């Protein structure tokens, strides 16, 4: 991180401010919380990477149904495991108050895209619905309901009728929902 573990340099701080939507206060708080997640040895590395398990212990992410997807999407490592501080800032920036609708919808799409293929097909949608309605057997929707729901969703949003929802169609649907921007928010 170009500085000691406990202190961010002024240049680095202003760079972070310039490239993300976060304020100085938020960046310093993020730094503090991030270093708490690191293990003792990792703290002395130049660009430490906090492991996924540690990140998932954050109270803001602990109960979030999409927590693993979030970490995967923002991770820049080869194995998509663990976040560097810059990834962490990216995450907070996309979920911050001042991020634009485009950024939020872009990352929302990537989070919902469970198989990382660039579109939301039926399997992605099914996983999405299961994520949001409950994992256990008695809280899930029945297979019939699921099929009906997915066909409703595709009917609403699939404009080119190819059976999947791509980014533009997703962003179009999102733009008609005024609650999205205020719901898609995580603040430390």
């Amino acid at each position, binding site marked *: 991180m170009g500085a000691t573990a406990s202190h961010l340099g002024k240049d680095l701080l202003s760079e972070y401010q310039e490239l993300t939507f976060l304020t100085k206060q938020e960046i310093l708080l993020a730094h503090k919380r991030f270093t708490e997640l690191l293990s003792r040895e990792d703290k002395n590395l130049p660009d430490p990477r906090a492991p996924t398990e540690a990140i998932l212990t954050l109270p803001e992410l602990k109960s979030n149904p999409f927590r693993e997807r979030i970490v995967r999407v923002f991770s820049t490592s080869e194995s998509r495991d663990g976040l560097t501080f810059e990834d962490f800032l990216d995450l907070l920036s996309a979920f911050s108050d001042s991020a634009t609708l485009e950024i939020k919808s872009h990352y929302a799409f990537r989070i919902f895209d469970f198989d990382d293929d660039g579109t939301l097909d039926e399997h992605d949608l099914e996983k999405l619905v299961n994520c949001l309605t409950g994992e256990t057997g008695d809280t899930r929707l029945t297979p019939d309901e699921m099929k009906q729901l997915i066909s409703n969703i595709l009917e609403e949003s699939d*404009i080119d009728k190819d059976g999947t929802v791509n980014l533009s169609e997703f962003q179009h649907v999102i733009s*008609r929902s005024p609650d999205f921007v205020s719901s898609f928010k995580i603040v430390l």
Partner: protein
Amino acid sequence: MSHYSDGSFYNPAYHDSETLELDRRPPFKPRHSNPYAQDPPPPWQAARASAVSTVTGPRADAGPWEGGAGGGGLRALGALPLGPPSSQHQDPPWQRQPHHSSVHVEGSLHQAAAASRVPATFSANMTMRLRGMRRMSMFPNGDPSHLSITEGAIRNELEYEERNLVKELLACSTKERVEAIRKLPMTYREKKHIRNRVLASKSSKKSRHLSCLADCSESLSLSFRRCVAGVAAARQALDLWQGTMKEVGGSFGSSVLSYFLFLKSLLLLNVFSFVINFSFITVPMLAYDHVPPNVPPNVTFRGLELLTGAGYFRYTVLYYGAYTADSFTGLLHYNIQLAYFFTIAAYMVLCGAAVLYSMASSFKMNYVLSDPVGGGSWQLLCTWDFSVTNEKAVRQRKNNLRVQLQESMSERSQGAGLTPAEKLRHFGIHLGAWFVSTSMAVGCGNAIYYLSQYEQQRATNAAADWSLAREAETLLVPFVVSLVNLVVPLFYSLFNKFELYSSQRRQIYALIIRNVILKMSILGILCYFWVHEVALKFLCWESMVGQALYRLVVFDFFFMMLGSFFGEFLSKVIGTRWIPGLGVPEFDVARNVLDLIYAQTLAWIGIYFSPLLPVLQIFKFLVLFYLKKPRPVDHRLLRPSNKFLRVSKNPSLE
């Protein structure tokens, strides 16, 4: 996004995509056959290929996300502007232009000029990925020559894109550049890379033509921006009740949180108004007025003044009447008349400007074409509240969502079409409900008018006699007003239950509009009464009006507390101990926000007649905050509001 004249906005990706002309070709078929491929191309390449060869903007978004490069879906990078960016435009140039991508991997690579959507710095990460193990698994039988062509071709095209992006950014001013780079959906490293490239070319350009003026203005704007950022940081540091807000947001979600944020901002507004009124008007008055207030001999402070605002208070600086019309000629020449008028006027103008500004900014963020398609399932899924952190609350919300989804699906399958007879019936019911509610509002207004007149007559009949009973009579009108404001909305909610609305949103708006009509009509009638009757009868009518408003504010406070006690606390007790099946009532954000707005409107009307009224408001809001703050209840019983509430940043829009 640019706006149409009817107010809807232009989403370039949607309108300019050719997928609107129903692309009837089967999905995911590779549009071009790669003569070098020995087996079907891997999914990522098929997606890219199909993206690449169709002349469809959005299609190109179906690129893989690997390398954290943010994939193809970069509308932000998509189009290259065809003209120089001007400072009037809000969005960075590339978001405005139509996207006509026609990127071909093989063949005309450099047709990428017309806005491919692939990120420029894809190159670094793509090559990284391509060189990795993944490539081997993806191309099990691929031959190296094919791979190198693909890799080289992609890299060239991405490099070209990056160069164009950097060129565009160079043409922007610093502020636009910073905002534009922030909006790129890329990883941090890539944004930094782009920024460094832009800065490098900028400094090389600079060394060529030195412009002193440009330099000066740059540094000035930089220091200004730093100032603004510093102010924002300071404000954040002094944040009141931050811990509580986070707790409330974590357990109850963003809509309840927005109510408390609104309450906090109103409190701060009142503190500000108190400070300026006190310092500019009251302090000079107190400092000048060496003699004690000219109180008539038989009037002393009795406890009732706190309620009625009359009696002893009448002669204090609380009201307009106590301020002299002379100007002071002590150390400074201080004209208190002007000070009074201008302070209040400036405060009102500032308030008005602040409200308009926040309305405009939240409108920009939340504007929506029209009613979303039936409040469909997609909306339900996409508006999962990410700020809820309490585990039980999350589980509760999941349950609610499941129920809502099931309901919406059954509604869809049933209520496809209503018969004309039914439609007429619904329309008739709506009309009837509106008629009844408006007539109730008008009726209450009239009743209050006559009551005020009656009370006025009683007061003038025995003008000199300020006994306790006489003063207590003045409490009648505010009592009735607050009672009406409490009871009649309950009737409105009852009507709402009988009516059948096509969407939740319309239902909430109808309820809100009726409540607003009621409150505004009562206030309007009272104002009319004051201006036309009180002003003609009394010499110091401003003080009388000030007193009346004081009483209204006090009673509004009492009834709010009472309402909160009976409405929420008692129902909670009933719901938990006596009749568990009833559950805990939802926190009705809309109604509470409306109450806050009404209270603040009273204060704004009254500030001219009683400059120290904000003190009362501050006290009121503080108590209200701690009263309404939901304690972490047992989440089995708490039902977060099922309604489609606008989680709007600025509740004053409602």
